[in-house]
């Protein structure tokens, strides 16, 4: 039987494991997004694969235990594997992606899925095995109390690591260093379980050194994913920023995609002069984001105010320091969330222009909603205009593009009396209060504004047929509006992405549905409770981050703190749940279920009814209490599970699988398809089924 200090060592090991795995997760998500697409679908799928692979590992742990009992030495070997694998993963992601895909080519959904599974699922499977094995070392007889404490230690490690990463590590260390560092801490915590045999120790250390060396070697020799030379690379809070130079041209890549090409005056001219030509005297300008040459074009109007809002301070620093954005006289660079900036500013502008890409994530979507446009309009001087550019119209709009264009148009039209769309490099949407004149070259000529692209090419780009086509295309009956609480554009951008790769998520959805159906049918009442608890905790995190960002801007630290608050809620819940005795378990589960249902419904009803201050308090309160109620169920649910390692492993697995389902359903189906209220209400529905299951089990 393990001694008391053995239990303490296991708890330390679990704490370190929680910290290391969270660091690996954060780093790998970042690395994968750099190599593949960074849209909401890919992000959700990475988390889903992570959680479900862990769940499968947990379910498999007892079966593996038949062949390998969870001795301290085996726990060490498994811990060593969990230290070694991430090094190889970080190395492999750098070298495999450019080999498996052609340079510069985006992978579609299924190649991305294949790569994600290949790369992260072995590691996640091992994590899934690790926790039941650690539990077996912690206590010979599995109890809710023991399992909850193990979970507690792991969660605690995760909270600390995620805060450290967000606030500190990401700014100062490379992905590789973070993973090696996290692995080192984990390795130290595993030392007490190190085998006594000298040769085994030497072999373990040798493998570890070999893995680190191999990872360093892989990263060193990994081919650049770009054609040019990377002259600078840094990780910001929002992703990786790289500057690639080829001949005289510089390209800024964020998460592997070109967002700024130094030799593209055309787009700058379109984004500046199309809206400016519709304003009598454009002297106060605000740009959200930047493209090459945009401020030089803006300066042609001799603006009194020229503000450049860039949410990512690292990006604006890179653009200015590299001379990519010419700092024209009077340019004011503001690193703030645009919504927060506008909400707190009394300034009026003659034109406000979004000079950045379309929203692929919920965070970015907030700059394209009706509420944001209303905020923008409130900051426009009389006769002022608002503009942004949308990709995807050369000569025809496919169904997904048409839907997207119609949504942008309808959303803008719900705020501005007049909306114009001008085709070109991008289609420029312009909202104004007056009917715009489209003889733009003539207007520019009369003002003495000289352009190198716009005037000479206007005749071939802005043809009557194209203008008429766009006008017809956006007149869709019942076009969706893109709202803060119903981010319709995100779904349409994802539809367009799938259409681009001629794919559909159908063949992904089928096995996923079969997996969850089998899980639901085979789950014991305790496992079912944890399945829904996992769903709840992940849904709460996703919804809370989304809602917080909608109401309060994309503020990285606060979102990190929000997730930590959710984890802290789980942590407190686990502590209370650990003290619940066997016979009280069913009652506690039902009470927690009822509490979650009531809270979720109250949250759904409260949405949009209160001011921002009260809404903030509600989000924080709900995040903490719902997470607490989910965490509370963990110990009692294990008490309801069949005794023995199978029960604990099944419980761990169910919790992880439920969380995986939560990511997929909430982020990909319910939020973009039905909105925030439906996402919150879905928690109540899922929990109600859990309640029925426990209640009916008698």
């Amino acid at each position, binding site marked *: 039987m393990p001694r008391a200090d053995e239990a303490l060592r296991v708890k330390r090991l679990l704490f370190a494991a929680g910290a290391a795995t969270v660091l690996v997760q954060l780093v790998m998500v970042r690395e994968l997004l750099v190599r593949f697409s960074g849209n909401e679908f890919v992000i959700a799928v990475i988390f889903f694969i992570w959680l479900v692979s862990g769940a499968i590992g947990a379910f498999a742990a007892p079966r593996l235990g038949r062949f390998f009992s969870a001795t301290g030495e085996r726990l060490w070997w498994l811990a060593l594997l969990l230290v070694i694998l991430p090094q190889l993963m970080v190395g492999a992601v750098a070298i495999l992606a450019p*080999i498996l895909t*052609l340079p510069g*080519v985006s992978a579609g959904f299924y190649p991305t899925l294949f790569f994600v599974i290949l790369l992260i699922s072995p590691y996640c499977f091992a994590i899934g095995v690790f926790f039941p094995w650690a539990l077996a070392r912690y206590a010979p007889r599995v109890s809710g109390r023991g399992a909850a404490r193990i979970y507690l230690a792991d969660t605690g490690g995760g909270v600390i690591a995620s805060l450290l990463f967000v606030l500190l590590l990401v700014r100062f260390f490379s992905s590789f260093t973070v993973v090696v560092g996290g692995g080192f801490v984990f390795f130290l915590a595993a030392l007490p379980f190190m085998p006594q045999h000298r040769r085994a120790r030497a072999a373990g250390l040798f493998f570890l050194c070999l893995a680190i060396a191999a990872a360093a070697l892989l990263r060193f020799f990994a081919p650049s994913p770009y054609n040019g030379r990377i002259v600078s690379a840094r990780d910001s809070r929002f992703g990786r920023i790289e500057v690639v130079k080829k001949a005289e041209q510089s390209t800024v890549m964020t998460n592997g995609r070109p967002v700024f*090409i130094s030799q593209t005056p055309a787009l700058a001219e379109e984004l500046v002069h199309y809206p400016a030509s519709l304003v009598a005297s454009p002297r106060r300008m605000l740009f959200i984001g930047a493209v090459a040459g945009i401020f030089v074009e803006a300066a042609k109007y001799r603006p009194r105010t020229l503000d450049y809002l860039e949410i990512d301070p690292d990006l604006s620093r890179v653009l200015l320091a590299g001379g990519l954005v010419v700092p024209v006289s009077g340019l004011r660079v503001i690193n703030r969330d645009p919504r927060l900036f506008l909400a707190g500013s009394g300034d009026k502008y003659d034109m406000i222009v979004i000079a950045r890409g379309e929203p692929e994530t919920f965070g970015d979507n907030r700059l394209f909603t009706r509420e944001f446009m209303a905020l923008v309009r409130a900051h426009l001087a009389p006769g002022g205009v608002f503009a942004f550019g949308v990709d995807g119209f050369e000569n*025809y709009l496919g169904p997904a593009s048409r839907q997207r264009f119609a949504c942008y148009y309808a959303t803008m039209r719900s705020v501005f009396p007049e909306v114009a769309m001008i085709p070109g490099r991008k289609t420029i949407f312009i909202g104004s209060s007056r009917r715009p004149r489209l003889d733009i070259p003539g207007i520019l000529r009369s003002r003495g504004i000289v352009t190198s*692209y716009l005037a000479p090419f206007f005749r071939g780009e802005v043809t009557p047929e194209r203008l008429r086509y766009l006008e017809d295309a956006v007149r869709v009956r019942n076009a969706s509006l893109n709202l803060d609480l119903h981010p319709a554009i995100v779904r349409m951008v994802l539809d367009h992405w799938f259409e681009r790769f001629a794919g559909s998520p159908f063949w992904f959805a089928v096995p996923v549905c079969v997996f969850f159906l089998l899980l639901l049918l085979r789950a014991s009442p305790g496992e079912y409770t944890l399945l829904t608890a996992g769903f709840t905790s992940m849904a709460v995190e996703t919804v809370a981050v989304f809602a917080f960002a909608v109401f309060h801007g994309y503020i990285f630290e606060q979102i990190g703190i929000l997730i930590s608050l959710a984890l802290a809620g789980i942590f407190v819940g686990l502590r209370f749940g650990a003290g619940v005795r066997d016979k009280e378990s069913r009652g506690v589960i039902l009470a927690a279920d009822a509490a979650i249902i009531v809270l979720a419904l109250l949250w759904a009803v409260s949405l949009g009814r209160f001011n921002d201050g009260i809404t903030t308090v509600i989000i924080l309160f709900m995040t903490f209490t719902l997470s607490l109620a989910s965490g509370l169920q963990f110990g009692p649910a294990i008490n309801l599970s069949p005794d023995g390692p199978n029960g604990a492993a099944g419980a761990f697995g169910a919790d992880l699988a439920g969380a995986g389902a939560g990511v997929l359903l909430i982020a990909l189906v319910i939020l973009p398809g039905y909105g925030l209220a439906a996402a919150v209400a879905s928690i109540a529905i899922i929990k109600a089924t859990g309640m029925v299951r426990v209640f009916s089990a008698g």
Partner: protein
Amino acid sequence: MAVDRRRFIKGSALIVSSLALGGGVIWLGNNRGRFSRLSDITGHVFRGQAPDTPGPFAREAMFYEKTPGATVVCAHCRHACRLAAGDMGLCRNRANIGGVLYSLAYGNPCSFNLDPVEKKPLFHYRPGTSAFSIATAGCNFRCLNCQNWEISQKRPDEVRHREMFPAAVVEEARKRGAASIAYTYSEPATFYEYMLDTAALAKERGIGGLFISNGYLNPEPLVGLCRVITAANINLKAFDETTYRSLDGGGLAPVLETLRIIHREGVHLEVTSLVIPGYTDKVEDLKRMCAWILANLGPDVPLHFLRFFPRYRLDRLEATPVSTIESFREIAMAQGIHYAYVGNAGITPGADTFCHNCGKLLIERRGYLLPVMDVIAGHCKYCRAVIPGLWG
């Protein structure tokens, strides 16, 4: 310490495996994209996706071969799709319905615009005029950088279209004052019958026909087409087979043959080459391409180098630096090509026409505007040298 046999073998294995790992990593690094380049993205026939009956926009195909059973072999393009009854061709535009091959795109264009002829690009063909440009859905290539993928990678029944049979197309072109009708955007070879009939009718009315294509058409239909069109711009997408296969899903040799045939048939020809960083920006390939053009088409065929921008699936790559295409133009002219141009690069002297004989500026192009036009009746205003092209 004595080294026994077992320890020696273990140590050796360790060293060898470490070296193998290191060597493997270096080899993989040096062979970037090798595995994926082996892939051929040509695509495949769509089994069982033909409509049950020919619709209002279906016409029996002009070139195909019936084989025993209900199987047919399409003879329009080089893919030579073998289609059983109910199958649809690789181009998504030709289907075997009951043992007869139909074109499904006759009179149903999904896109039509009035474009400057310079946009095609055609620089030596009636400068300053407009071309009524039409396209239907479908393409026999799978270019990863296609800018019209929303029509080229779709079936005709998947896109919104307008009914516009050949007479209506010609009438629309006439109403808009277009000097020509351009068959463009997607791949016109896939709507061959529609293009052929329209071009023939347009020719009768004095309206030119512009074939803007990837050049993967078979010789027989191509020769027929050359009788009714007035100019062609063929996109020579790469100058090696491997890149053609992996980037576009086509092949080089058939395209070169197309260029030879169009030139031989006396149709005004211009060639376009998109310069994509890392794919088609190798100077050796450019020199080989110029040598081939000089040997087979002569120095007077205008050659356009276009700047690449991230598009469609090839969207994680840099754009082509302007200096790269400008240097391509200079190299091509140094090789002996008389008229090389740069495109997609804004206002640049590389888009202007200079007399190959006296070197004087003949056509200044500022976008689609032509402030200087000194080609007089097909001759240089200064030295009276004949400038190749159709100028009337």
